[in-house]
């Protein structure tokens, strides 16, 4: 079969170039339509994705903004201005929840930032069996979070938990890990770090393996020991990924919920593990006060968004 003969289109008579409309980008005739036809499958997929995002992500975000200024406790939804924020502000648990969340974030940064980085450094030093070690470190991430948390609940149990059994071997008296207001949050952070460090470790490891070997060789020639090599070569070379991970970790830890909820029933001893997200959960699902829940959620969102913006700006300025 021969190729079709291309002839002039008899229907199109007027071939003078048209003047583009004011303000509209100039597109050659039929360009948009052609593009649309050529990428019809891609557009089909795109529409699906946009609809899904619109329905399940963007609409709830917009709704959250609206809900924060509405009252939904009686039959009719009504606008109440800042009332929900006042309610949340006056809640006795408000201050405690923020203090606890910040305390969790600080502890999680100390443990959850340093431990995966040091682990990645150690794994990076191994010449053989790195794949194995990577798998071992990543295994806890593959467990369902609830299973991991319940595992730690057993380990921490003051009556029959493994941690106290181990301490007993050395003659150390049993500890009230989750039951003591002073140690409850730290215990939660330890469990959380164990559960989540696998992913961070792999990212650090990838960053470490991108550091050129000759830099270490040069440092060694200058007489640098291990710590100096880490401080003067590794850290500057992986600085960007470290900053990014720090930012992501802060955002993630400020939203902590599952670990305290399952380990200490949410509030914890004397409210020592009540977090902001747990308080949001309480408003929404225990008190049916969706307006207050949305208001508190909005406060958290604004704080995290503001923090992210400032941090990104600082980061960009530093790069320039």
């Amino acid at each position: 079969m021969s190729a079709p003969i291309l002839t002039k289109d008899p229907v199109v008579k007027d071939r003078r170039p048209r003047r583009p409309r004011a303000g509209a980008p100039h597109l050659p005739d039929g360009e948009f339509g052609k593009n649309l036809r050529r990428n019809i499958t891609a557009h089909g997929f795109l529409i699906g994705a946009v609809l899904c995002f619109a329905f399940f992500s963007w609409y709830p975000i917009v709704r959250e903004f609206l809900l924060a200024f509405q009252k939904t406790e009686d039959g009719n939804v009504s606008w109440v201005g800042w009332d929900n924020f006042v309610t949340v502000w006056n809640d006795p648990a408000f201050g405690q929840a923020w203090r606890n969340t910040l305390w969790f974030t600080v502890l999680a940064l100390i443990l959850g930032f340093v431990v995966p980085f040091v682990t990645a450094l150690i794994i990076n030093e191994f010449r053989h069996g790195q794949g194995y070690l990577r798998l071992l470190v990543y295994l806890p991430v593959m467990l369902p979070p609830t299973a991991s948390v319940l595992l730690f609940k057993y380990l921490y149990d003051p009556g029959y938990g493994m941690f106290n059994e181990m301490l007993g071997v050395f003659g150390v008296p049993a500890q009230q890990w989750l039951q003591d207001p002073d140690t409850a949050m730290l215990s939660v952070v330890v469990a959380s770090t164990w559960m989540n460090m696998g992913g961070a470790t792999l990212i650090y490891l990838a960053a470490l393996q991108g550091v050129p070997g000759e830099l270490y060789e040069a440092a060694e020639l200058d007489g640098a020991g291990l710590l100096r090599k880490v401080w003067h070569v590794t850290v500057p070379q992986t600085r960007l990924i470290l900053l990014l991970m720090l930012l992501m970790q802060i955002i993630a830890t400020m939203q902590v919920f599952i670990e305290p909820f399952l380990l200490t029933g949410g509030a914890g001893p004397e409210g020592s593990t009540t977090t902001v997200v747990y308080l949001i959960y309480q408003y929404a699902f225990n008190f049916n006060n969706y307006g207050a829940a949305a208001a508190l959620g909005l406060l958290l969102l604004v704080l995290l968004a503001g923090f992210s913006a400032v941090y990104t700006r600082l980061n960009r300025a530093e790069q320039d």
Partner: protein
Amino acid sequence: MRRARFRRTRRAGAVTLASALTLTALAACGTSSSSDDDGDNGSGNSAKADPAAPLDPKTKVSITIDCMPPAAKAAELRQWNEDVKEFNKKYPNVSIKGRSTPGQCLEPPRFTAMLKAKSQPDVFYTYFTDLPQVLDNDGAQDITAYVNDKSVPLLKDIDPDVLSSLKKDGKLYGLPTSNYRMGLLINRKLFTEAGLDPDTPPETWEEVRTAAKKIADLGGGVAGFGEYSAANTGGWHFTAQMYSLGGDVVDASGKKAAFNDATGKQVAENLHAMRWDDDSMGKTQLLKWGDLQKQIATDKLGMFLAAPDDVTYMVQQLGAKYENFGMGPIPGGENTLAGGNNYMIKQGISADKVKASIAWLNFKFTTVGKGQYDWKRSKADALPVGLPQPNLWLNGSKTKDDAARKEFATMPVENFKAFTDNPVPGKAEPPKAQEIYKVLDNVMSGILTNKDADIGKLLSTAESQVNKVLATQ
């Protein structure tokens, strides 16, 4: 050209008409249950004329009912279907359409959403504490005029305390299906092993403390007495203990906390002493609903405050045996926390639907020997028979029902004799209950997790927090 335009116009018109019809049909579907005249009430006019008259057996009407047992509860579902058949012998034209919910029948978030969307069934399930929320949403029909000794013949024998939870300003908004009053649940095996008499559970908090110590002395990680202190259940039980000593958590005005007094201190000090001086409450704390049940079902706990239906949960879900448990009245015995469930009828449905709903509720839930009170059938279906609750009855109905429970019991009913023979007045939950419980969780967790807890400070902090909660009503 004109023809083409006309065709387009005609097509557009047809589409518009079809859309309008579809929308109308959808709208009609959405509001059919709230319509006052949905075409299936053959004698609707007469019914409207006299709400006090029972449903005419010839009436053709269809009603939707919440909480039909799910397929997983095979025996309960079979009983439901049998009851529908039996009911239809008298009312052949009443169509009962059950709606089943897997798991817990009433989940507060789902319930709230349902009320707001006005999508509740014609007959919907509620807790005793739900009435204010339902009325705020204009959800329930005032059925005062419909409920009388003709439509509910045993009305006079229903415990007035139970009925009062369904009333507001003298108007009745539902019919009860079950009720509970909290008591002291004991593990008979551990009581016997500790040299205690399981037929006479402790009646005072001092006796509880002594018994708990004896049971804990058995060793092997056994706790004598257990308490919750997480997920709002700690506050709930602190409230129950306050009631048991004649105290309260909120004063009569409903505006001020009332637990920071001698009674509150007594409750807190007793628990602190049991936990730390006697070491009789186990080392694991921050427990919530379900945790103590697991402990007592596995013979690791001697006693805790519970309602009789906890025993059903322990037997059916945790594999425990009925004969291992017994109940006494709540120690202290001044008041006990009471609660339960009921059905309400959706506001705005036709008078005949209301009458049919009441006829069904009466048949299924408030007739001795029928429906849920058909103990002979429950025994045949291997369901629990012999628990002291639900017990809505007084007078002759109580005598008759108690006798049937005993006759068809699937468990030793005498194990609950101490509880049934010593009824304690029931008292409802405080206003803003869940928010107050959240605050009081801190008191409970403080006492049970901190040996050096400052009880005075815990109570006064909680008092100021509860006052703030109540001030924002």
